[in-house]
């Protein structure tokens, strides 16, 4: 068994983030799905998705990783279509087609790794690459593998220009599922698997780094700009997720210690704050009957728990000190400066301002201003939904305050696992 599973700092960080978010989302689901007819199916699919997530994080075998990716994403496709209306089914099918093509590209890349190293085991494959008899051909094959992986996992993590499934899928899914998709799935199935293979199996090269920086910059700007113009709360958050994935790719693409630590910390933070934001959107939709910002207003007095937690999440995601999002973005920006590339740092700052603008819009339209007449009967969310949102908000605030401890015990070991290079 030790050949198939392994654990190091990077997987520990992902395990903490993914399972903590899953716990809070499940807590929220108790309230959200109360009395729902298809509750059982929901929980079965949810736990299947969780099996896939944990399997991808823990595995050391490429075929097992592919299999877990399939388990996780297949349940995600089904969960997106959970409400089985026309829109949901269409979003799910669109996600399905893009995701399946991406899976096949990933599979081809894994097959090429096997063809050139003779093993599917990541540790052994990393050690076998330098032993290949033709260095020239190996470099070419590595380039092809990296290209296939970047496109395949680029679709899975919704980096621009492979992002078109994400806004539809995340908008159509039930809110707790959106929180899992945005908070965990795109990071585990996309970013984690990609970085594990690029850094620890085939090795980082300047070309891959350039490609990742390019994907990151385009994602930050396109996602940020598209988010500002949205009136659908969940759609706005989905576009913002694309932008935050851009930060993570940018940090990893820098491939220096500060950038990688920033990216890892941003994975950790974004998992909590984006799932919190989606849970807030779900609470507003459930209680006020709409998530269109133009139809909302003045909910801060009616829904204090939702209001406070979404305010904290807004501050976190737009990088207001001392919330957690500020520190991870700071690491990435300092990493850009350290790499001598101030232009990238400027893009990161602009992206942060765009995020602030789009989420302040949510606050202004939904929670501040005059209470609309048809919203006077709105009540606060049920206990479990409120508790889950409050706890997530406390984590978002607490991680920012306890920065040194988080960096020392969670992010530091993860960064040394990533930067340790090939061979794990």
């Amino acid at each position, binding site marked *: 068994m030790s050949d198939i599973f392994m654990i190091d700092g990077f997987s520990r960080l992902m395990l903490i983030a993914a399972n903590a978010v899953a716990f809070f989302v499940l807590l929220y689901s108790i309230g959200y799905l109360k009395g729902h007819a298809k509750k059982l199916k929901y929980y079965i699919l949810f736990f299947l998705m969780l099996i896939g997530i944990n399997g991808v994080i823990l595995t050391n075998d490429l*075929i097992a990783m*592919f*299999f877990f990716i*399939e*388990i996780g994403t*297949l349940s995600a*496709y*089904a969960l997106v*279509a959970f409400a*089985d*209306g*026309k*829109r949901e*089914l*269409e*979003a*799910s*099918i*669109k996600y*399905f*087609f893009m995701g*399946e*093509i991406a*899976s*096949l590209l990933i*599979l*081809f890349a894994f*097959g*090429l790794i*096997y*063809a050139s190293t003779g093993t*599917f085991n990541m540790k052994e494959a990393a050690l076998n690459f330098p032993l290949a008899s033709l260095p020239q051909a190996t470099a070419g094959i590595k380039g092809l593998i990296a290209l296939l992986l970047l496109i395949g996992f680029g679709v899975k993590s919704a980096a621009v220009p492979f992002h*078109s499934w994400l*806004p*539809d899928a995340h908008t159509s899914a039930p809110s707790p599922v959106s929180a899992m998709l945005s908070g965990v799935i795109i990071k585990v199935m996309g970013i984690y698997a990609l970085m594990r293979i690029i850094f620890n199996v085939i090795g980082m090269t300047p070309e891959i780094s350039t490609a990742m920086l390019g994907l990151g910059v385009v994602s930050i700007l396109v996602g940020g700009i598209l988010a500002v113009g949205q009136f659908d709360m969940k759609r706005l958050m989905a576009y913002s997720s694309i932008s935050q994935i851009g930060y993570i790719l940018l940090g990893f693409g820098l491939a220096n210690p500060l950038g990688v630590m920033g990216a890892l910390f941003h994975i950790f933070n974004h998992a909590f704050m984006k799932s919190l934001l989606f849970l807030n959107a779900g609470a507003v939709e459930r209680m006020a009957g709409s998530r269109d910002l133009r139809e909302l207003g003045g909910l801060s007095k009616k829904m204090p728990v939702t209001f406070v937690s979404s305010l904290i999440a807004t501050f976190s995601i737009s990088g207001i000190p001392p919330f957690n999002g500020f520190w991870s973005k700071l690491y990435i920006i300092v990493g850009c400066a350290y790499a001598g590339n101030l232009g990238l740092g400027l893009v990161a700052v602009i992206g942060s301002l765009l995020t602030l603008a789009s989420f302040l819009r949510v606050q202004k339209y939904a929670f501040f201003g005059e209470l609309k007449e048809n919203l006077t009967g709105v009540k606060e969310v049920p206990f479990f939904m409120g508790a889950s949102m409050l706890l997530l908000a406390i984590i978002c605030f607490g991680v920012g305050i306890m920065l040194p401890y988080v960096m020392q015990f969670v992010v530091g070991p993860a960064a040394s696992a990533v930067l340790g290079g090939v061979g794990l």
Partner: protein
Amino acid sequence: MLILLIILIVLAIAAFESPKYLYSLYALAAMGLVIGGYFILNSSPVFGVIQIVAMAIIVFALKTYLLEKADEKIMPQNEILPGLVAAALVLLLGVKIYPLLTFLPSLEILGLFLVGLYAVVKKRNLARMIIGIVVMELSADLFLSVVGERSGIITLAGVGAVVLLAMLVSMLHEKAGTLDITKIKELKG
């Protein structure tokens, strides 16, 4: 092998125009995989069994969930037996010269993958797009069986995917009344 390659790709293209050729394609690819896996690459016979069962499940799922519901009449009736016979003939020819032409499988894989991708990107009928996915999966199976071992588990994942996709598309067909994506499109992108 060259004949096999050409016939596979022609059949793949034909399957999008008239899905009755789909069964021939399946039969051909399944037998190619079994024979390739068992006789040439010395992999386990279990792999071949899994492959055949997988093909049967996919065909069954497509038939149950989809082909009967498609807008035009594309349900084949008596095409399975001729397809199998054609496939067997081609394979008997193909296997004899297979070891001599080791580079051809890669062409075949690339050709099948591109044909499938073309179908998914260009076709407007969801049933045909699913066949595109199936053809792409065939190419991935073929690739894994050429480079090595343990492709059975991949086939299983692929079967799960196609069956779920067929179910989702059939539900959408019930709601929207059509399989044409230009008529269904509600989402912005």
